[in-house]
């Protein structure tokens, strides 16, 4: 498939990234996508060469080049492992997002990506499920100081996480509400290259948030946290600046610190799979450790690779129709090996996606952090 493309221009910083990364091999060992396909085109360098061919030497996008751009998990592992990134500010995920936006702008995206977009726009989830199947379709929206946003994966697939979180709120007598038919935040659309649609979704979500009059938002999905803290201000969408926006792990850590929440001790070894969107993009590493540590104490053990060095839990290995980008389990397998190496009985995750990718492996159980906490009160 050969398609004529009028390439859009790279910014200076993205151009610098392209120039630095296109022939550099030094983060190969940290790129999770290569160890799924073993293809050179599925490495940061490979993608750099492909994007160089389009944006610097004027070649056309082809089907396989587009596929390579979408095979990236935008997890930022490459940047974390780059010893020059601190002074060079190289950002492969941003470069990939730019390329995807361009691909979408030129209408070159694959039918699968298009379907995913349609599903998100029409039904607030990328799984192709009907809106009426969501957890939030069954709730009654009320007025409350605390708004809990579950996120697409929790809302449509992992209801147990929302139930665990609501159990914690009830236990603490916190008045909380959810949004009826919770809209998506647009982050997945943004990551797929549909920025206009993403901004529209984020605006709609912001409007619904404003209407609740809440003072604190607690989210289960790291992608929503990233959107509320970074994208919404960046897109100049109106949202109360005094709103406190917390991931559930941060919220729980605050409660534990203030003495309002006390967890029963766990006796088995517990470990944590850091989240790429909470960690690498929002520097949230300590809160989940404080939560787990308050219960596990010395039974908490770090994975060999942790914090910004954990490769990827697959938070943007989106699944549609159980097929597209269905590499999450492969990513989970890498982390499962690390968990088994340290003899962990439980691995705590910070997203539904990570939980799903880590479930079903021998030797340990995977619990999202609110489930972990709800089981200890």
């Amino acid at each position, binding site marked *: 498939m050969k398609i004529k493309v009028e390439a859009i221009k790279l910014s200076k910083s993205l151009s610098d990234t392209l*120039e630095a990364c296109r*022939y550099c091999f030094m983060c190969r060992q940290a790129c999770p996508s*290569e160890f799924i396909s073993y293809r050179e*085109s599925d490495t940061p360098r490979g993608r750099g060469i492909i994007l160089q061919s389009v944006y610097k030497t004027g070649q056309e996008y082809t089907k*396989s080049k587009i596929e390579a751009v979408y095979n990236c998990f935008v997890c930022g592992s490459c940047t974390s492992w780059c010893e020059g990134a601190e002074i060079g500010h190289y950002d492969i995920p941003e470069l990939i997002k730019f390329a995807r936006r361009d691909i979408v702008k030129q209408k070159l995206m694959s039918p699968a990506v298009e379907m995913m977009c349609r599903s998100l726009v029409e039904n607030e989830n990328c799984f192709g499920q009907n809106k009426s199947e969501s957890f939030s379709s069954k709730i009654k929206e009320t007025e409350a100081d605390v708004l809990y946003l579950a996120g697409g994966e929790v809302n449509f697939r992992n209801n147990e996480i929302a139930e665990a979180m609501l159990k914690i709120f009830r236990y603490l007598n916190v008045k909380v509400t959810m949004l009826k038919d919770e809209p998506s935040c647009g982050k997945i659309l943004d990551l797929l290259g549909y920025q206009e649609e993403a901004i529209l979704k984020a605006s709609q979500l912001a409007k619904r948030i404003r209407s609740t009059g809440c003072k604190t938002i607690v989210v289960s999905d790291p992608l929503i946290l990233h959107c509320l803290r970074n994208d919404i201000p960046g897109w100049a969408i109106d949202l109360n600046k005094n709103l406190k926006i917390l991931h559930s792990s941060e919220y729980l850590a605050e409660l534990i610190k203030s003495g309002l929440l006390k967890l029963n001790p766990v006796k088995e070894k517990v470990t944590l799979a850091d989240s790429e969107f909470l960690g690498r993009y929002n520097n949230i590493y300590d809160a989940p450790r404080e939560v787990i540590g308050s219960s596990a104490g010395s039974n908490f053990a770090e994975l060999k690779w942790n914090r910004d060095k954990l490769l990827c839990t697959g938070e943007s290995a989106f699944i549609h129709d159980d097929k597209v980008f269905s590499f999450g389990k492969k990513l989970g397998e890498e982390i499962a090996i690390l968990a088994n190496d340290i003899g962990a009985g439980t691995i705590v995750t910070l997203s539904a996606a990570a939980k799903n990718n880590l479930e079903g492996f021998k030797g340990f159980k995977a619990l999202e952090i609110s489930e972990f906490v709800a089981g200890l009160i």
Partner: protein
Amino acid sequence: MKLDQSSYMFGMILFELQDVVGKDCVSCRDSDKEVYSIDYFWIPEMWADRQKNNNITRPTADFIIHPKNADEISRILKIANNYKIPVTVWGGGSGSQGGALPVFGGIIIDTKRMDRIFDIDQKSMTVTVGTGIIMQRFEWELEKSGLSTMHDPASSNCATVGGFLANRGTGVWSTKYGKIEDMVVNMEVVLPTGEIINTLPVPKTACGPDLNQIFLGSEGTLGVITKVTLIIRHLPEVRKFRAYIFRDLATGLRVGQRLLEKNLQPTVIRLYSESETKELIKKVLGIEREGAYMVFGFDGSEEMVDLQMKCGMEIAAEEKGEDLGEELGKQWYKNRYKFFFPPYMFKLPQCFGTLDSVASYTNIQGVHDAMREVIETRYPMARFIAHFSHWFHWGAMIYARFIIDNPPEDPEEALYLHNSIWNDCLRAAIKAGGVLNEHHGIGIKLGRLVPELYGDSFIVLKQMKKMFDPNSIMNPGKMGLGI
């Protein structure tokens, strides 16, 4: 042989290859052809960069294949022989000599699916591993048991074990633990005609020539190394380093030589020429000094390390080295890979190359001076830096580099300038007692100079090639062995 992708014959051969490895493990995708047409050699990088304004192209493979074992490779090679299709082996593709480039098209065998660790024998202290494993990931696995091959080059992040074997690679601890070729116990190799052979179970025999040594450094021209048993070690209790500034390179070279002569076992000795001390050491470690920067270090049990360090420090003091202390030595260790990351590493449009060579202690300074003189007298647009990073009882390796900040825009002129520098510098190095290369290999970059280096004995390499690979399908155009 360049195949027309639109012909049914292309489809027929593709089908045969897919029959061996499965449909998903053969790629003819343009994205892969693009990416597998560039390794770490400056020429294809420059060529790709300048493609926009020039009517130039890069040679690409017809098929990129991801086999999972020796048997599949054997069957691929038999097909390649049937149709006389060139075969180039690709590990990490991070070689700097163009050795993995499919310069005559045909098949690329990407070995990375062969990444299994078969056995760790903690009694014999050996490990058997598929050669497609990325070195760093291999080391991470060994680390879990407190073990290491002690092969730790900057390219660990990106190169495969097979790539090191094929190019006789080395790592920062080579002065104590040797180059990769010193770590090999035995190997499984697929010959160009498809036979799968195993070398003897142990290497130190008196049962004729060591077959391992035939395939080590053969750069995929004599077969494909698919499995290897390597020596492993326990990770050391401690590693200690010390940094010094010596008044000049000659003094530093003498210190290095004396450390070995005294039968100390330094794990590492790195000596930077005055110019590299000024340029790179300042940039990466922030040390601004005149003279030659040196780090040496020891590993093992703390008691042994401290004793050896004491002896090493005495030698350095006798040579009037300025002791920069342990901390700056540690800093080098911490940052030892940083030199190869952007923005520290040289990059296009700069023209640059690593003229690594090796010579006896009697000749090593002469090799350095000869190459520096070539750059300074014939190429005023270039600058020359060097360090000495792998030391033997009889001599040392020089890692010299030339850098041109503004090479010619025209790709053919740039190629001419680049190759002229290599020819002139390496001919000067050979004349002074050096060789073409110490641990990066020959590839397409230096192949033309191999007959000059070997002289009368080149016929041995030629005849070996003819015997092993009668149809000359394996990595044609490389190592000076023609097509």
